């Protein structure tokens, strides 16, 4: 392993890392919005909504993410929907993870005691207001640890975008390794760079957890 190799490979890998981060953030946002919508649908008293959401969640959870990516990138164009590989990877990961996010949020919402909702009702709050002011703020605190884990998994699974030609970090590594045969150097660098991204995220989630845990329990804030 030569130092000059590292300085030569690093800029290319960092470019890939930037795309990795973009895919992760895009997919995280999409999965959050879609997941929240699915969770609310699944908990809805309207049977058609809860059934639709439940079916969607089960189908998506039952499919390998890589197959979903292939479907979006290779099959949708045949139906007239053209997406760039980058767009397809964000949508694919976002939709795939929305099912897990929905379950995170649903668990958080269902963990709220019925007494909380009754108390809110007893002061005349309507359902939407109760959701916004009483249920969701508490549910978010409960859902935060699994949400953080999901974010870390999205970061790691963004490497699947390499299979549909997105030049994110894993793909960048593959390309360098294929042309230089410096497998050890390249993949060690790739692994270290993933850790540089995922460890701060893990620590950040831990900190948020402690912060929310404190204010929820009313510690010495």
């Amino acid at each position, binding site marked *: 392993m030569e130092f000059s190799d590292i300085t030569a490979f690093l800029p290319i890998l960092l470019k890939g890392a930037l795309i990795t981060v973009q895919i992760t953030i895009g997919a995280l946002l999409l999965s959050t919005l879609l997941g929240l919508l699915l969770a609310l649908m699944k908990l809805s008293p309207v049977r058609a909504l809860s059934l639709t959401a439940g079916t969607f969640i089960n189908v998506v959870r039952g499919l390998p993410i890589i197959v979903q990516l292939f479907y979006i990138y290779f099959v949708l164009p045949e139906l007239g929907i053209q997406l760039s590989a980058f767009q397809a990877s964000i949508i694919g990961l976002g939709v795939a993870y929305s099912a897990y996010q929905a379950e995170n949020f649903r668990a958080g919402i269902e963990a709220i005691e019925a*007494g909380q909702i*009754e*108390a809110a009702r007893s*002061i005349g709050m*309507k359902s939407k207001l109760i959701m916004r002011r009483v249920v969701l703020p508490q549910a978010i605190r409960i859902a935060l640890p699994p949400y953080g884990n999901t974010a870390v998994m999205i970061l790691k699974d963004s490497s699947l975008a390499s299979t549909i030609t997105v030049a994110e970090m894993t793909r960048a590594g593959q390309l360098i390794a294929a042309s230089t045969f410096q497998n050890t150097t390249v993949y060690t660098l790739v692994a270290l760079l993933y850790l540089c991204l995922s460890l701060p995220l893990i620590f950040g989630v831990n900190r948020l957890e402690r912060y929310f845990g404190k*204010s929820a329990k*009313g510690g010495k804030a």
Partner: protein
Amino acid sequence: MININAIHKSFGDVEVLKGVSLTVAKGEVVCLIGPSGSGKSTVLRCINGLESYDQGSITINDRQVDVASKDINDLRTQVGMVFQRFNLFPHRTVVENVMEGPIFVKNEPRETAHANAIALLEKVGLGDKVEAYPQQLSGGQQQRVAIARALAMQPEAILFDEPTSALDPELVGDVLIVMRDLANEGMTMVVVTHEMGFAKEVADRVCFLYGGQIVESGDAHTLLTQPTHERTQDFLRRVLNH
């Protein structure tokens, strides 16, 4: 003010209310007593629409209580509720708990709501706890915050569902004092309670429920000292002699 006329209520196959009728006049304090499972909490929960009822009618100031109607939220602002387990919002401070309804339901300006909330918290003896979170308070303090939260909506009546049952014995007194003061100020109150001393001292009327029916009711002193119904006698003997 509150008019309950022959309500029936079933949970599945079990009929928990079998024709309960009760009228509560403005300023009156009515205590509901009875063994657990007698339906007293259910009556209370029907009054502000936390539970629906199957037959009969409930009116508050001549307005029908109907869980399905849009009116129900407005009615609930007129009838406060205090729960056995307090049910304070754990993610909000004490003063925020009290301000929540006035700001978000009644659309009061924040400053007004804040000033009122502070005044109410002082009234229940918690002027020094306004910025605390509920979990930092004792059960008795939490229950007094819950009373302040109900009062902040300026309700015409307050329903108390076993407000002291979840408290350590030494904390019961402070809550009962606040409730007695409210009664003396003329608040209309319906109280489900096991505190016979409180009922005797504060209630205008006591109703004894058994098996989903009011089997006996009358002025507090008479009912608690000279009950006529066998069930009431039996119940009071058990409660007072333990």
